[in-house]
Structures are given as C-alpha cells and as structure tokens.
C-alpha cells in the first residue's frame, strides 16, 4: 500500500466520520467537532494534491489559508452556540427546529 493511498483513505475516513457526526449527533458543539473533522480531511487532501503534482509547498500555502479560514468559522460557530445556549436555553438540535415548514 503506497503512502498516497493510505492518506486518501484517511482523508475520506475523516470526511465520512465528520459527516456521520453531522447526521446523528444532536448536540451543537459536537456538530462543530464534526465540521472540524471534515476540515482536517480537506487540509490533508490539499497537501496531498500538492505533493502528487510535485508542488507540495503550494499545497501547504493553500492549507494554511484553509486552517485560518476554518478556525474562524469554528470560532463563530462556537460563539453562536454560546449565544444559543444563553437565549434558547438548549443546544439540542431537536429543540432548535422552531423554523420549519
């Protein structure tokens, strides 16, 4: 098994596990954890893509931007979660479904 194939399986594994978390978890914080898991897969994917095309440093600089951007997304998501806890009194997604139909 080559390194590339191992990494590809890890990438898809992380994305799959992250998506699974988004499907079954009902806690908002854990949803954000699932998102972060997917992003880790994407970072690996970009670096691997760079490596496969012989431009690993280009891949790295893309991944750096992704790290920054998705950390900000996580920060805002957590801030929203805190605010939701404060004003809705819950983090359960089942209770956060007042907007429907």
């Amino acid at each position, binding site marked *: 098994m080559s390194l590339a194939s191992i990494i590809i399986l890890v990438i898809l594994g992380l994305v799959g596990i*992250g998506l699974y978390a988004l499907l079954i978890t009902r806690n908002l914080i854990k949803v954000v954890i699932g998102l972060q898991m997917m992003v880790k897969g994407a970072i690996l994917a970009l670096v691997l893509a760079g490596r496969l095309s012989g431009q690993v440093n280009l891949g790295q600089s893309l991944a750096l931007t992704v790290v920054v951007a998705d950390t900000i997304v996580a920060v805002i998501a957590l801030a929203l979660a805190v605010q939701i806890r404060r*004003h809705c009194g819950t983090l359960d997604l089942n209770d956060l479904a007042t907007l429907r139909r």
Partner: protein
Amino acid sequence: MDVSLLTSLWVALPLLSSPVIYLIGRLTVRRTPHKANPAGWLAVAALAIDAILLALTVDANNKGIATAFKFGDVVMRADGISFVLGGSAVLLGLLVTIFSLQYMAGEEGEEKYYALLTAMIGTIVGLGCTRDLFNLWVWFEAMAITSYMLVAFYREQPASLEAGIKYLVQSAVGSTLVLLGIALVFASTGSLDLDHIMLVTQSGSTLLLAAGALFLIGFGVKAALVPMHTWLPDAHSMAPSGISAMLSGVVIEAGLVALLRVMGAISGSSLAWGWLLLGFGLLNMTLGNLLALRQTQVKRLLAFSSISHVGYMLVGLGLAVTYGLHDGAAGAFFHLITHALMKGLAFLAVGALMYGLYLANHKHDALMVDDLNGASKRYPLAVFGLSIAVLGLGGLPPLAGFMSKWQIFVAGAEAQSTAALVIVIYMALNSVLSLGYYAPLVNRMYRKEPSPVILTGKRIGWQISLPLVLLTAAVILLGVYPTALSWLTDTAATSLLALFGAI
C-alpha cells in the same frame, strides 16, 4: 487612470473601507453614545465611490482595454460575468445601505452591520473577478464568514440565532466539499489557474467527475439548489430585511457564478453538466413554487420564491451549456439582474412594512401574510413597490421579470429539440403556478379591509422610501426597455460560453 489599478480599486475599496467604517463608528458611539452613528453614511459614501469605479471599469472594458490585474500568481480579470455579479452587488448594496439608515438606526452594533455589509459586497466583487480555483474558494469563504453574523444579527432573538447556526453549518459543509473538489482538480491537473485547467482537462477522467460533483454540491448549498436549500428560508426570513435582500438578490447568485466558473474549467470532462444544471433547475422551480404556495409568513414566501427563481437561471444556463445557446446564457444573466432588482425590491418593501408595523414599535414579530390586508391605505408606496416586485417575479408583462423569463423561453425554443420544448412549457406552467401565491398578496393589500396592525403602523422615512422608488422604477423601466442591459448580458453570455469552451 491605469485600468488595472482601476479594476483592483473597484475590488479593494469596499474591503479597505470596512475597517474604517467600523473604527469611526465605534469611536463615535464610545464618545457620544446618543448621537446618530456615522457608520451608515460612511458606508453609503464608500459604496457610491465604488459604483463610480465600477462605471469607469465597465467603460474601459467596453473600449476593449483588458480589465485585469495580477496579484502574485493569481490573475484577477473582470469580464461580463464579473460585471453582472459585481454590479448587482455594488448597486443593490448601495440601495440596501441607504435603506438601512433608518431601518437599522439605533440597533446595537450598527457599525458592525455596516462594516460587514461593505466587506461582503467587496468579497462578492472579488469572487466575480478571480480566475484562480483556490482563490475563488477564499473569496467564497470570506463572503460566507461576513454573512454569518449578518444573518444572526438580532442576537437576542432565538429564531435568528437558530437560522444563523443552520446557515453556518450547512454552508461550512458545502465549502469543505468544495475544498475536496479543489484538491482533486489540483492533483489531477497540477494547476490552479482556471484557464489553464480548461486547456488540460480531458474527457472521461473519473477524478474530475468526482470533483465536479463536489463543486456542484458544495457551491450548490450556497446557490440553494434543491435538496441543499433547507437553510435558505430560515436565513432569509430571520435576517434583517436589508440583508435578506442582499442574500436573495446577490449572495445565492454569487454561489451560482462560482459554480459556473469552476464547472466551466472542468466541463471538458463530461457532457452531463448541462443536463445536471437543467435537472436542478426544474427541481428548484417545482419545489420552490410548491413550498411557497402555502406559506403564511411573507418573508418565508419570498425566500421560497428565490429557490424557484434560481431554477429559472439554472435552466437558462443549462440550455446555454447543453445546446451552446448564447440566448440562454444572456437570458439567465438578465434574469439574474432582474431577480436581484425584483427580490431586492420585494424584501425592502416588506422590510419597510415590518419597520412601520413592528420595528418602530420595538417588536420583532414576523410579518404574516394576514398582516398585509389593506396595507395600501396606509403605506401606498411600499405596497405599490411590493406589488410591482411580486407581479414582476410572477412574470407579468411588461415588467422586468417577464422580459427575462421570456428570453429564457425563447432560448428553449431556439434549441429546436423536443426536450427543450417540454422544459419551456414546464417553465411556463410554473410561472402560472407562481402567480397562484403572488396575485393573492396584491389582492390582499389593495382590496381587503385594513387589519388592526396596519392601522397602528408608524410612518416610514425617506431613507426607506428612496430605494423603493428607485427599484420600482428600475423594474418597470427594464420591462419596457429590456434592451437597455443587453450590452451587459450579451458580454456575460459570451464570457460564459468562452468558459465552457463553446467559442
């Protein structure tokens, strides 16, 4: 002025002015808490200057001077599509900012609202110009980040927070899927430049097929393709009305443009892309219309109608991509512009009513359809604007919406194929169906007895009225002179066909 400097200024000015707006606004609030916040006026000034820069750039482009600049390895080039998207963003943004002068006055964190709104407009303009696959994602993500807080701006309203987190999670999933697609394209072509990718794309590559699927879904979340649309009605109905107008009029279209750019680059990999666009278009139209039919909240109804209108654009673009029809693309871009105007007008008019009925009385209730009864008696201008907007959206001649839909119909007829003909007839039926929920609104506003809420409504000021008047005039004028914008939509259509390698 040097054209490339001009173009870069057009992109950068909103982004540069955003921190200035925030800082000045913040300092004023600190020193004199009871004075009116200058942030709004600063944003109006910045966007007005940006509109002038836009005009100059367009002028240079029409003279045949390449409106491009290079930033490191990343090429930014303004073409027809950039002007359609960026122009809608700047102009609608300007009107929304003027509208917000009264609508948002006295809200907590006003300066953040204007700073983020200006930054969002800048990111949309940049998104339209960039020619680099990864840079496109960065602009896209920046646009998303600026809009998260704007959607959840009423941070003490549970509903608005709920809408914000749903929007955030879904669009974050989408953008991660896009990243995976970018990695696939980067790995298989070794390049990030869209023009270069197009040259080296071969058909039948399964990697590029997977990448295309990820792009379609990832950007499709932002463009509200069914079944990724579920965030849209929540976000659009809970955001402040000005932001609803921006989201509906420009942001979902920005998702569409981003999708077109990357799909164009890898379109050589398969023939199915155009059909996928058509399929999503029909799905969007049907579901958007059917779900709008029984809505009781006005803003939610308009949000679902946005879903169906994305469907019209997708069908136009799909026809263009599948059959290489210039008219399909021109119609779709024309519809993009008219939809921005009509939906902007609709949301702003609803916002004006909400302001008069609720916000001015310090209430945050949702505007229900029943609240509109007899509103024409008290708010003739807003009601007229809303009526023109929804009738235009329903495709009644001679309003702008009819002309743009008609162009897409004509493109379908030009395709000279039974499938395209069936699609056109289906679209026409959908238009009729959409009148089934637009027309009762108008009827209600003009012919019913005023509801008690209406009678207690407050007056609305000129800041709210001015954008309504301008947008109403634009919707009517574009209906009467649809050719006024054909130079722009034609350029955009040419750019699109060039993207998909049809020329």
